[in-house]
């Protein structure tokens, strides 16, 4: 092993140990939410980047919150996105949706309106064809939570 290779290997190890770009399940997550996270990630590292999650920082009504997710990168080859999962930390059904892209004709960009059961962090995790995971997380403050309780 020459010096450059050794240095590179060490840098790789250091990166894994410190892993500034690595995301982990948050402490605020409910058990259901943590379970959804584990189902989606299945022990693979989750890297921050490529994904862009857009939602208002603060909303009046959690029943209908504008939401958009998009992922950068090629639409073909091993780096293409094949799945996008969205996980809530406190909603009773934490996996909001899973979108499976099956064609290069579909850009990785999707908008809808979601329900939020309260102020929380939301996670969008994209999975590439070769199984890499990328994430973006956003905090949303909710004044009136979605009526998940009796109303």
């Amino acid at each position: 092993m020459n010096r450059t290779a050794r240095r590179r290997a060490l840098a790789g190890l250091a990166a894994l140990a410190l892993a500034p770009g690595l995301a982990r399940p948050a402490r605020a997550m409910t058990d259901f939410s943590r379970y959804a996270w584990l189902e989606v990630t299945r022990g693979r590292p989750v890297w921050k980047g490529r994904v862009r999650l857009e939602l208002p920082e603060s909303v009046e009504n959690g029943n209908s919150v504008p939401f958009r997710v998009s992922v950068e990168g090629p639409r073909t080859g091993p780096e293409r996105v094949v799945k996008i999962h969205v996980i809530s930390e406190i909603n009773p059904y934490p996996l909001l949706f899973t979108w499976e892209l099956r064609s290069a004709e579909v850009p990785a960009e999707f908008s809808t309106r979601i329900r939020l059961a309260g102020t929380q962090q939301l996670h969008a995790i994209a999975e590439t064809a070769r199984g890499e995971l990328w994430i973006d997380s956003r905090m949303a403050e909710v004044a009136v939570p979605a009526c998940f309780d009796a109303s």
Partner: protein
Amino acid sequence: MAMPSRLQVPARAKRGETIEIRIAIQHPMENGQRRDESGRTVPYNTLEEMFCRYAGDEVFRLYLSSGIAANPLLAFHLVATRSGEIELAWVDTVGQSGRASARITVDD
């Protein structure tokens, strides 16, 4: 229960152009925790699965939950590569299904 929907697809596009597609479906997306006037729990019933076909090929599949707001409004894009039908079909928790389609003509 009928599930009326509205699908918006441009009638024409240039080959290679990225077009926006929107669909609105009337569905309560019941989260199973709401009570009706008589105090009974309204059972969980949401759109569960949806797929999209473009000119006969499946281009995506979507798995939904009660985390999507009532009367779902979904927007996505397609790269217009060929003329044909854009079809969406979906099914909810109790097995009710619906579909919508529109034709797009792609010019060179």
